[in-house]
């Protein structure tokens, strides 16, 4: 099938307006929030599952790849059309189809923005737990594909723990429900396999997600440390004491500096690290857990431990954390976010190693991350205009990832492999492990039509991949 015939078919399926081929239209879709860019050949915006099916069938006939895309906030290049083909953007499919509070389930289309699920049920006393810091923009479809986490997934679990079932359009164009509305559906856990498959197994067209009851009480603490070491030790000690906070976040000195340079929230500028600790549950639990956490902070030599006395104060404590990412712009024109995981107990040493890597590559690194589950986000600061600097940034990033794996961790905790880390997946999995994954892939997508050249360490054959720092929409944090 020629390109023209395909485009004509696509127009028939979704309507002229929703097939983009002109450079000025498709350029918006050339990148996600990573540094990788490839100009799409054609972008299609379907309105419903029927259209998705028809597009998949057309792509199959024309033998071109399909790259699903949600909001494009991914940080691993997952939505970048590395092998050309159709970029299938699900943003128009953004309806919340069903809210069933008695059964604590919501059924949503893939383009629904994460925060809108929680917003739809807040008044009734419920929430959707996975809360990526990009939740004001990222889509449920993207969350499902990337198995996204967030600050509060420490206690509540990541996306896979909250998705009961997905409806997916598979390689033959059929829409099939994977998983079920109840626990333990007989058969293989296809929903569990699909979550985190980064768009390589099919297109999410609906998701049935769990809703949780809002906790009756919340306590939020901010602990300030003069040295990094005792701050990371505090994280280890809190977990070891049997307290599982809803969130346990860390910011280092460089991040604090950035925050205080921008819109100050009153973090001491000379502090080496601050910890934000949030405890949720019944009142009697949070009260006691907060006291214990305070004790642990003090025992580790925290200079100051502040407990929010009101919702307004709680918001203020979070404000710096939420604005940290944006504030990094005050320190350098560009920054590159890494994502690695170590066992919590290895946090003290990995933070030392990250600092060493920074000095080895002559780069400043600001750390702001989900410390409670050992999930680092070193932000490497740089200036794109300095020749060769981006290369050094990427090398430093690779060194951090290697250090995490060497410490018994993983090369990504929530951002995924995508294009960014496909060359490194061999650090964690050998050929046999990857071959087993490839068998899974073949079971779902024998022709490799969906999102080719992602996740697996196969070479990219596409002509032109460029690197350029992304423009991150306002209102997102990291």
């Amino acid at each position, binding site marked *: 099938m020629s390109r023209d015939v395909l485009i004509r078919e696509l127009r028939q399926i979704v309507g002229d307006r929703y097939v983009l081929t002109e450079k000025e239209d498709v350029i918006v879709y050339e990148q996600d929030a990573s540094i990788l860019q490839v100009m799409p050949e054609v972008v299609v915006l379907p309105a419903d599952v029927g259209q998705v099916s028809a597009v998949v069938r057309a792509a199959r006939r024309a033998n071109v790849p399909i790259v699903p895309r949600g909001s494009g906030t991914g940080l691993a290049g997952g939505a970048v059309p590395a092998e050309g083909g159709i970029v299938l953007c699900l943003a128009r499919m953004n309806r919340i189809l069903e809210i*069933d509070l*008695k059964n604590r389930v919501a059924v949503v289309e893939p383009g629904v923005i994460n925060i809108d699920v929680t917003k739809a049920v807040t008044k009734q006393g419920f929430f959707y737990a996975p809360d990526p810091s990009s939740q004001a923009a990222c889509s449920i479809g993207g969350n499902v594909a990337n*198995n996204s*986490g967030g600050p509060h997934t420490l206690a509540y*679990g*990541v996306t896979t723990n909250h998705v009961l079932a997905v409806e997916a359009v598979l390689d033959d164009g059929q829409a*099939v*429900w994977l998983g*079920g*509305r*109840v*626990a*333990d*559906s*007989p*058969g*293989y856990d*296809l929903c*569990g*396999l699909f*979550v985190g498959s980064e768009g390589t197994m099919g297109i999410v067209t609906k998701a049935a997600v769990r809703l949780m009851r809002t*906790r009756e009480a919340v306590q939020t603490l901010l602990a300030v440390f003069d040295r990094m070491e005792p701050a990371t030790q505090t994280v280890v000690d809190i*977990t*070891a004491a*049997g307290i599982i906070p809803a969130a346990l976040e860390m910011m280092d000195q460089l991040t604090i500096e950035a925050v205080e340079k921008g819109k100050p929230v009153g973090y001491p500028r000379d502090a080496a690290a601050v910890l934000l600790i949030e405890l949720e*549950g*019944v*009142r*009697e*639990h949070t009260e*006691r857990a907060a006291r214990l956490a305070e004790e642990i902070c003090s025992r580790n030599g925290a200079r100051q431990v502040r407990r929010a006395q009101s919702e307004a104060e709680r918001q203020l404590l979070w404000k710096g954390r939420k604005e940290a990412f944006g504030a990094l712009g005050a320190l350098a024109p560009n920054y590159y976010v890494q994502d690695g995981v*170590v*066992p*919590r*107990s290895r946090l003290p040493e990995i933070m030392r190693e990250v600092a060493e890597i920074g000095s080895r590559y002559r780069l400043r690194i600001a750390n702001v991350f989900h410390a409670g*589950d*050992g*999930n680092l986000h070193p932000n490497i600061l740089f200036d794109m205009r300095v020749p060769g600097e981006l290369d050094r940034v990427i090398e430093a990033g690779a060194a951090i990832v290697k250090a995490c794996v060497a410490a*018994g*961790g*993983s*090369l*990504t*905790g*929530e951002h995924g*492999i995508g294009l960014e880390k496909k060359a490194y997946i061999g650090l*964690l*999995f050998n050929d*046999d*492990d*990857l*071959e*087993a*994954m490839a*068998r*899974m*892939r*073949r079971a*779902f997508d024998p022709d490799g039509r969906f999102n080719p050249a992602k*996740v697996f360490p196969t070479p990219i054959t596409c002509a032109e991949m460029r690197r350029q720092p992304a423009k991150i929409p306002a209102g997102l944090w990291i």
Partner: protein
Amino acid sequence: MNATIEQLAATLETALGSGSVTADASALASYNVDGKSPAIFCAPKDQDEVSAALRLCVEARAGVIPWGGGTAIRLGNIPRQADVILELKRLNKLIEHDDANLTASAQAGIKVVELQQILGQQRQFLPVEPPRPDLATIGGTAAANINGPRRMLYGGVRDLVIGMKVVLADGQQIKAGGKVVKNVAGYDMCKLFVGSLGTLGVITEVTFKMAPIPESAATLVATGPLSRGLQLVDQLMQSTLLPAAVAVVSAEATGVDSVRPAVAVRAEGFEDAVARHLRQAQELAGRMGLRAEVLREETHRSLWEQIRDFGSSGEAVAYRVTVPVASLADVVETIDRWSRSERAARFVAHAGSGTVWIASAADPAGAAWFPRLTALAKEQRGHAVMVAAPPEFKQGVDVWGAPPESLSIMREIKRQFDPHAILNPGRFIAGL
């Protein structure tokens, strides 16, 4: 099979050593699967030997039954072919307990009770509670996806397992996941093996998240008319309380009460938080006219052990019905009605997961429960599974119920991972 039993036994013996393999019928007598007695027993000592054994079995096209503690061996359809028992009990070591990180790795054949003892020394535990932990192994628990009463607070097996080592049917040794609680590198392959009932590979090692042993734990038991008990459950679910488990038990299902049904509410955590749960649950129960009693220590423990073990020993026929949580009350009332008007059955229902376990005698009336439970579950968008029954009851039915619309993918997965269908052939859904 394309080799004789003697030939296969001999090659296995060469590979594993003579002490690890036997074809002696008397030694195999207790390894019966739905009336089928495999002819060869082998007990590899490590992952390499599991791999070697599977390679030989696939070559011989022998049907392999991986065997942990045998506690879930009644689950599943009658195997099409059962030639070799592959027992994992010798893979029984704890690999690592990273208590600061609240994770641990153990070989598949370790008994759950032994594992809990080791973890308990650091005041931690694995919040997965298979029946008969003195027999059940961690690998079998993961393979059969056996969840306990406290799932509503701690999550299920699929949520707690973060890493695995598996030997595939062709002997290939792979790892899935890792040792950290958050990890999205590659596909989430652990999900493939949890609940696959040993039909895709043999699990040899499991890494999981643990929880700290709570400072305090106690149970409120409320007895009285079933409908009021179910109202109590409803009120609890609507409250902001976070009980560790809420179970509805029929009369005689446990030693609690031989005439009346009861609701058991388990609270654990800090002392004050436990007291609060008990207080509030007691108030609610009182308002409903239920008789409430607090159980601590031994009586608390023993009740939950009975609930955990329900349906696992002695019962001739056991079913599991799972429905959306809000439908649980209706389903339980219907089951109770049938039980009183037709065939006596005992049940335990878990409010957090919408699961009801039903046990009854092995007579035709007991067998007749299955189609009725299936229809009942379907009405509520749930499903029913015949989890244990004598082989004659399993004949001609799929114990897993009607297959889902995604069956063709499941078939393709089975084909990709076990093309010669040697692993537990036929036991899984739709005869996979």
